[in-house]
């Protein structure tokens, strides 16, 4: 049951709020013990006759009165006295939370395995990860536990798990959605988005969360368009760019699925052109300087004095990033690392600006590989960081990107991303929806089986 179905059902009065909630709660009862997407569950009884919609929030969203841990032991027992702006806006439109979702602790990770609490499994293959850091969000939506889950994308943390779980993930333009109340990872790249089953659902939710917030000085005052309005306009006559730097060193199966995506868009009337983003290979190293630098400062408040527990409760990855970041910001190294990385960041941004003078949007793979097996990469930080190679450039540049189900490889979902100009989310939804209508991959439900055929 998609969000769109629920809204239709409520307006036709074809089903009640209890039928809706029961559908999702039964699915949770049946499969959550295999998937492990929730950290905290909330018992709710939606009011009769209300048009409440179930939702769950990544555990780095502050939720008033509900424990918020960022999946880190250090925040065990922390109950925020306020809610994130996104949470408040969604509540005002009838979304009621079923709980808080697992993720890599403090959103540091690409597989979900850095959670201090539990490892979330991929509903399409329980021996594999759903991707991270928004592991619980992607898995919960894929598994049919909720029609929508909030998530965050700092370097790919929405798009990567979406692409591994046959779901739609939006990383909005930096500043489009308020960051207030979402526990900061990398302040200058954190993007506040969500994961849904379909493109329309994603557009509907962004229409609620997007817009200026007086509590976030980096939120934009640019008007929020009606994202669902032009969703059926089609791609005929559009020019889509294929960045050549994104198509090297990727798994042949990823390439195969992506070629199908390209062929489909050509069939639908889009013009496909090769483009170049020459600083792509610099982006990852630049990202892994800026990110730990900001993290080392952002995690300074977790001293156990005003909330949470003491610093010994930080996990390995958090400690690693604090140390790297502290080093990069130290006197004598700042110029060589942080300042230089910021310069490279400008070059990465210029790459995108240049390309968008000649194309409407860019399409590209999200992950260079299929969803990894649990435990297969996590002991090698560099290998894990490499999973982000196709997603981080967008975060450095601030552009929006939509991850859409592209197809399957041996039963494993493979997504692709559509990257747009700043604040061009509406166009991304039109492009994504055209592919979804043609392929309808969202109808292929997860198997909850132990392993796929490869």
């Amino acid at each position: 049951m998609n969000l769109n179905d629920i809204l239709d059902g409520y307006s036709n009065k074809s089903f009640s709020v209890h039928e809706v909630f029961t559908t999702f709660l039964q699915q949770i009862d049946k499969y959550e013990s295999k998937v492990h997407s929730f950290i905290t569950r909330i018992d709710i009884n939606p009011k009769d006759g209300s048009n409440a919609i179930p939702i769950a929030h990544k555990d780095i969203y502050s939720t008033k009165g509900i424990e918020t841990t960022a999946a880190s032991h250090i925040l065990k027992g922390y109950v925020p006295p306020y809610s994130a702006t996104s949470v408040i806006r969604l509540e005002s439109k009838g979304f009621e939370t079923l709980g808080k979702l697992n993720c890599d602790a403090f959103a540091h990770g690409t597989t979900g395995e850095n959670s201090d609490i539990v490892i979330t499994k991929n509903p399409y293959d329980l021996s594999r990860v759903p991707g991270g850091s928004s592991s619980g969000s992607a898995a919960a939506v894929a598994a049919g536990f909720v029609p929508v889950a909030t998530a965050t994308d700092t370097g790919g943390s929405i798009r990567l798990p979406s692409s591994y779980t046959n779901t739609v993930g939006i990383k909005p333009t930096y500043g489009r959605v308020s960051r207030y109340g979402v526990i900061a990872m990398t302040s200058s790249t954190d993007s506040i988005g969500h994961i849904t089953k379909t493109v329309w659902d994603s557009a509907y939710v962004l229409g609620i969360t997007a817009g200026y917030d007086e509590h976030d000085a980096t939120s934009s005052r640019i008007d929020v368009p009606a994202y669902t309005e032009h969703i059926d306009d089609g791609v005929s006559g559009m020019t889509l760019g294929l960045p050549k730097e994104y198509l090297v060193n990727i798994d042949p199966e990823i390439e195969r699925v992506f070629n199908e995506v390209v062929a489909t868009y050509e069939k639908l009337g889009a013009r496909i052109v090769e483009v170049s983003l020459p600083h792509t290979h610099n982006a990852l190293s630049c990202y892994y300087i800026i990110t730990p630098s900001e993290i080392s400062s952002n995690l300074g408040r977790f001293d156990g004095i005003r909330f949470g527990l003491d610093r010994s409760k930080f996990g390995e990855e958090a400690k690693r990033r604090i140390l790297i970041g502290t080093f990069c910001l130290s006197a004598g190294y700042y110029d060589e690392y942080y300042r230089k990385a910021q310069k490279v960041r400008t070059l990465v941004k210029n790459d995108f600006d240049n390309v968008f003078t000649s194309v409407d949007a860019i399409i590209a793979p999200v992950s260079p590989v299929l969803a990894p097996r649990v435990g297969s990469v996590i002991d090698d930080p560099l290998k894990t960081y490499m999973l982000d190679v196709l997603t981080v450039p967008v975060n450095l540049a601030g552009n929006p990107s939509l991850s859409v189900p592209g197809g399957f490889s041996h039963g494993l979902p493979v997504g692709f991303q559509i990257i747009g100009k700043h604040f061009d989310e509406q166009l991304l939804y039109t492009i994504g929806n055209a592919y979804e209508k043609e392929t309808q991959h969202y109808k292929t439900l997860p198997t909850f089986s132990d392993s796929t055929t490869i």
Partner: protein
Amino acid sequence: MSNNSTYELIIGLEIHIQLNTESKMFGVGSNNIWKEEPNSHVAPVDLGLPGTLPVPNGKAIEFTQRCGHALHCNLATNSKFDRKNYFYPDLPKGYQISQYDQPFCTDGYLDIPIGNNETKRITIRRIHLEEDTGKSLHKDGKTYLDFNKAGVPLMELVTEPDFRTSAQASDFSKMIQVAVRVLGISDADMEKGNMRLEANVSVRKIGETTLPNYRVELKNINSFKFLRDAVEFEFTRQVDAQQKGERLYMETRGWDSKKGVSVLQRRKETESDYRYFPEPDIPPFVFDKIYFDEILADLPTMPWDLETQLVNQGVRSDYAQMLAYEEDKYRAYVQYKDTLDDEDLVKLIANTKDMSTIENEITKIKSQKNDVGVSADELSRLISMVIEKNPTVVLDYTSGKENALHFLVGQVMKLSQGRADATVVREHLIQNLRD
């Protein structure tokens, strides 16, 4: 005692001033925290709760720039906030939002009197804005934390090491205190911690031209007298040490005013590394001419300018100084200027203790001088004009602020060029405002 006369003091000042804005520096919480219950004025932002974000207070920025302009600084057109990272229990976020390399104001100066009608120019290196920290209270072997003060807008003024005597440093500080009060940006009450002084002190042999290779940072100074005492104490201590051939260190010392000694707090073997980097939660600022024109439009006359004006007018220098630097006298002069002949007014204010009596005194002087009064018609016309021109002041008065009436009376007096009788004006005003 040692022979002090061959040594001279090198003093630089860092002055912290809490701004009296309605809300805190980066949040919506109330800034009015004096004597409030500990931790009663702490919004999620002030506590640095996870997920909170700083939104800069535009008024505090404006106040800092007005102050910078008054102190002849360059006002930056491009500026930003930075994070200063360090750990302390009363620093909620593990960093303080401050300004590193692009402060709002740089390269200003203030000329201070040094006797014999001479002045000395003190260079102001920078004025920047930051957030205040919380407060640690150590009692019975425990530490208590009060975060009411966390996030109060704090302006920091840093001078070059231009002072050569404790009196110069103290005079400068007093001038800054009056200046920020006249600007209306801070109460600058040292007892309340609104204004905090730190002095960097070293000594060298007279005739030497390079700065000493050490300096002692003096903290916990909460009065001008303590500033002078602490600097004098350090002078003696440091000269003694030099004469004994002892090494002097970069260190921080606190002033113990009860014992009259400075106490070592910590020695700095190396410069602290605060790992400054630009605050990513606050976009950088670009200020244009229109903005500056607007915020600097209605700056009051600064005390030192008033003093010069008065002296040039032929006013006795001690009177001029009094009117410029005693805040209530300054305010009375500005308010009642033009109600009397300037010479009479200056004399009157200089010799009056209680400024609330000044209105009556002005009336008395005028009647002695047999000034022609104003007709009833003219008076009611003047009163109407003043009421019309000052709607906000009228509102202040009707909402109970008695002081607003003084202002209105002053305005009518001014318009009548001092011919009206203040008592009569007051009565008529009250009548008019009641209607």
